[in-house]
């Protein structure tokens, strides 16, 4: 009895020693790496030569940070493995309960964001930054939800999703500038055009699978962008299309004078009215995307998408037309990208091929993968993290106090993205919300 206790104690002590040793080793490696990279900085001197500035303080901070982080990580992992050993069957239930609470909470915040921002910053005009950020995030949430249909539900890896976004944006830009159509007519048209492009691309390529499909969709995205750059007569080339008509409140323009939004509703004119309207517009569009996706999951077509993701051959043996099923997923996903694209055009008032490069596709795909394939709330959280995160970085003034005046957190954006991805793959390889909610339950049907 006493023997076991001693053994347990020495075991714990040995573990602690090993953790400290491991952290020290990491700090040592950091030191070795930072001597050539960090310890001296070359600045242009008064003359022509360079001046060496030593930065041993920073090296010490780096090593200490690595030591501390590694220590914390190892202690956390050790604690977790001990926790796991006790076996905790309630954990998944707790996770799903938490995610059930997150959804209404997030929705509540989203619905009241303009009011909250105005209250927090002390005025509607001052809250512009936050509402603009909200619009940006919601655009990506909508794109993420749209792509989730294709990648998360139907399991078709689409690397060129931004192409449909571009089709939507240019549809609105061209239809409104050339034919003078209003936004509310262009919005469904843009969706239809994008869906048509989805079908057009889908027909030849949907017999491909996995990596091959990814390559072809990637190429398709680039083709659309290059056509937009080079077909100058049609799309204005690299200069893009400008002076696209702004959104109106169902026909009432957001102008200062007579017949404007403010005058009609007896308000004082404020340019923020339009921004708030745009915010609620994209919120409504995103929620429609979400609603349709949630409904589709419970319909035979949505179930067929998921079945297709699981096993295409079994689907075929059950009489499901796999080509048509894939096409519907592709077209529906493209349609929502088209809606989002025309919203993008009406908000910016300017479109150019620059906005539709591969990085956009990659970010949208990263949002879907990080969120957990097929999980709606996971995608929303991932979009907030991926788009809101860099903005948050921009505002972290105290980092300058730590790393010096010249430190610009934005330069480290991609580095942090990379770290976040690695962390995700290690801790939650199936995405933030990996649990799949069944589309139907026998218990509930009783």
């Amino acid at each position, binding site marked *: 009895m006493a023997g076991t206790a001693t053994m347990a104690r020495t075991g714990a002590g040995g573990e602690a020693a090993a953790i400290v040793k491991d952290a020290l080793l990491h700090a040592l490696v950091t030191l070795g790496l930072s001597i050539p990279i960090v310890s001296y900085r070359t600045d242009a001197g008064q003359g022509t030569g360079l001046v060496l500035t030593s930065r041993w303080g920073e090296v010490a901070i780096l090593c200490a940070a690595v030591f501390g982080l590694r220590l914390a990580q190892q202690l956390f992992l050790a604690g977790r493995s001990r926790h796991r050993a006790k076996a905790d069957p309630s954990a998944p239930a707790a996770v799903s309960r938490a995610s059930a609470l997150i959804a209404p909470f997030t929705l509540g915040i989203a619905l009241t964001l303009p009011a909250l921002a105005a209250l927090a910053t002390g005025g509607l005009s001052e809250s512009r930054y936050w509402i603009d950020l909200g619009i940006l995030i919601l655009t990506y949430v909508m794109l993420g939800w749209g792509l989730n249909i294709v990648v998360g539900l139907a399991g078709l890896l689409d690397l060129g999703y931004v192409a449909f976004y571009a089709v939507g944006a240019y549809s609105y830009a061209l239809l409104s500038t050339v034919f003078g159509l209003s936004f509310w007519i262009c919005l469904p048209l843009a969706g239809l055009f994008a869906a048509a492009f989805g079908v057009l691309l889908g027909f030849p390529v949907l017999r491909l699978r996995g990596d091959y499909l990814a390559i072809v969709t990637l190429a398709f995205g680039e083709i659309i962008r290059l056509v937009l750059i080079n077909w100058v007569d049609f799309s204005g080339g690299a200069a893009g299309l400008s002076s696209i008509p702004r959104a109106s409140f169902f026909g009432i323009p957001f102008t200062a004078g007579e017949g404007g939004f403010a005058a009609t509703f007896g308000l004082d004119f404020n340019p923020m009215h339009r921004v708030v309207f745009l915010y609620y517009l994209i919120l409504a569009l995103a929620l429609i995307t979400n609603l*349709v996706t949630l*409904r*589709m999951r*419970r*319909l*035979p*077509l949505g*179930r*067929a998408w*998921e*079945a297709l993701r*699981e*096993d295409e*051959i*079994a*689907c*075929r*043996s*059950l*009489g*499901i*037309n*796999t080509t048509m099923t894939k096409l*519907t997923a592709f077209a529906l996903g493209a349609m929502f990208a088209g809606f989002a694209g025309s919203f993008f055009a009406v908000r910016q008032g300017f479109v150019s091929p620059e906005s539709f490069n591969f990085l956009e596709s990659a970010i949208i795909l990263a949002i879907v993968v990080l969120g957990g394939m097929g999980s709606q709330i996971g995608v929303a959280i991932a979009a907030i993290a991926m788009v809101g995160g860099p903005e948050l970085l921009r505002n972290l003034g105290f980092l300058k106090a730590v790393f010096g005046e010249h430190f610009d957190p934005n330069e480290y954006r991609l580095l942090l993205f990379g770290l976040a991805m690695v962390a995700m793959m290690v801790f939650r390889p199936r995405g933030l919300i990996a649990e*799949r909610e*069944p*589309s*139907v*339950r*026998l*218990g509930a*049907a009783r």
Partner: protein
Amino acid sequence: MSLATAAGRLAIVEGGPPPAASGPPDDPILIVDHLTMRFGGLTAVNDLSFKVGRGDITALIGPNGAGKTTVFNCITGFYKPSEGMIRLCQAGGETYLLERLPGHDVNRIARVARTFQNIRLFPRMTVLENLLVAMHKPLMQASGFSLAGILGLAGYRNAQAAAIEKARAWLDRIDLTARADDDAGDLPYGDQRRLEIARAMCTDPVLLCLDEPAAGLNPKESSELNRLLRQIRDEHGTTVLLIEHDMSVVMQISDRIVVLDYGLKIADGTPDAIRTDTRVIAAYLGVDDSEVEAVEAEVGLTGTQA
């Protein structure tokens, strides 16, 4: 015996009257006619003809690599045969040429369902969802190709409730009701096999093709499977065609057995007849070296193969 089989084979070719003991079925649901399947230089199935009687349980047996699964893949539309015809005659009189239908229409229109040698469930969907996916065609029509379903019209809700009832009936039969809301991939192996059969049956097939349904099952599970297959045949009037190595299953439940070896049919008849057929025994157990040539000549292997 071998003479009788040869006569039977002739009868299929000429469509003449069947000889008594092991002749072809009177009312065939499936007629495989001169089926040949080549993969490059390899002839996996060579001029195979047989009939499957309506309401029978027919077993397709043979040593490994005999071409059984290839025949299945041809029947269920996964391969397009190099030569030959596969005719399915439904009770209503409609006849379909299976080799001409697109893959998914073999199930959707001709109503031939199948299972797979290595189980192909939808592992990350629940047991109930697996069965509902199989009822895609009626549910899709009820949901107005999703338009009525998106709007939540009552017609679709009723159709889904009916589909769930049907799924529940099958779950009760295969004893999986308690696990209906668990992921199919989490089920034990034997349960997955039964679920795959139930899923195939949910498509309302007239012909059910089972590729080694008893593989990996223990004796108790095998006898349960026998009961399930008989039930399927007797209560649903579904004809069963199965590939199987487990002779306890094959001999007990089959009405008729077709034996393949190297892509050729070497015997076709009742279980009792097959049990004593010398060529079948030779194909499974081998023969003395001195007899090899004689047997190969009899089977018709020399020249075409090896």
